[in-house]
């Protein structure tokens, strides 16, 4: 058992974790972040995606001790029910959400892309979400949503 300290969605948190505990478990079971989902547990589906220092990581393969002193973001960082992030708005209006299981991870991969690339081409969008599987939408709507949100975000700034 060790005590770790990190920034979660902009706030400092301190939590006791077991040596063999994954970040996925810590977030869901100890910090009540239920947006981070468990799908495959072996780094293939992407529904457990989180941002560590703004880069996408699979939390199912990340030991919690690894985020000591780091900045961790989940989809809660992007927006909330009162004020959604333009990416979230776009996912809804483009029909990019069906069952929603992949959505938090998709949004984080999209967010991380737009941080580095304000005007991504479709190929770049596809590459950015290639580590996130969606079993419902067929991806087209997701790609459209990200392209649409990129346009809105560009206008805003």
């Amino acid at each position, binding site marked *: 058992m060790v005590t770790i300290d990190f920034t979660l969605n902009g706030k400092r948190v301190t939590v006791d974790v077991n*040596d063999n505990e994954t970040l996925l478990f810590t977030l869901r079971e100890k910090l009540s972040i239920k947006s981070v989902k468990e799908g495959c*547990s072996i780094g293939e589906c992407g529904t457990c995606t989180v941002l560590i220092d703004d880069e*996408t990581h699979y939390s199912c*393969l990340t*030991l919690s*001790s*690894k985020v000591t002193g780091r900045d961790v973001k989940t989809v809660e960082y992007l927006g909330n029910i009162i004020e959604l992030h333009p990416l979230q708005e776009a996912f809804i209006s483009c029909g990019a959400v069906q069952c929603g299981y992949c959505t938090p991870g998709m949004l984080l991969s999209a967010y*991380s892309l737009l941080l580095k690339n304000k005007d991504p081409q479709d190929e770049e969008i596809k590459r950015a979400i290639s*580590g996130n599987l969606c079993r419902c939408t067929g991806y087209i709507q997701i790609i459209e949503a990200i392209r649409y949100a990129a346009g809105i975000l560009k206008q805003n700034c």
Partner: protein
Amino acid sequence: MLPEFLSRTAKTKEEALSYITGLEDVKVLAGGTDLIVRMRKGEAYKHLVDVMEVPEMKGISCDEEGFKIGATTTHNRLSNSQFIKMNARSLSLACGLIGSPQIRNMGTIGGNLINASPAADTIPPLLVHDAVLTLESKGGERKEELEDFIIAPYKTSMKSDELLTFIHIKRKRFKDYREGYKRVTKRAALAISRLSVAWAIHEYEGLFHDVRLAIGSCTPMPFRPRIVEEFLKGNKKEEQIIIESVKMILEEIKRITGDRPSFIYKIPVLKDLLENILRG
């Protein structure tokens, strides 16, 4: 759930080496993209030593002989590095194809080498560059060619008290070479290479001057077809020579591996791939 273990995070190389020597049943953890998956499936150790926080084992730096890559440098960092793009283009391309963005943000070049999969994407480019590894232990350090380091599929010559710290590539010999990496997979992302080729070729007035090829996923370990490289040296860049040399490579593969069911598919694909690479 993962099997029980105790984990330590090393902050310096010395600390990492003390843990590796001092602790019982210990395994080094870097990005975790292979190890944690295997542990999920039951592989177990008493201790893990996380070396991702050791600053000197990360990044790319130049030295007298060329440049060196820290073992915990991530695939993403390597694929985005302008320096690697210019000095080892095949490696840059290979790192950009591994896994998925998340895997590339987490996984490291050292981890890929130690895993020593026949399909590891970083191995063929490093073979083309005659990469040399530094392995350190409490007792000192040794250097070994990557080609000798991998002794069997998923097996290396690394001893239990050793830590892979650096990968060395010699200075810019490859200035006027055309260099690349291609792989064939079942799908674009999160896929394992079924076939891969890294190359660096220098041609001069219609003659092959220096041809370096490394082929992955066809033989138990990625390999350089040296006999053919030698055959091509100084030979004319002509269709007949190209066809002849590719035939020699394919025969060499069958000799090493024996006939495999997958070869019905692989051999014709590899033939086209190699011929096109040589034609340039």
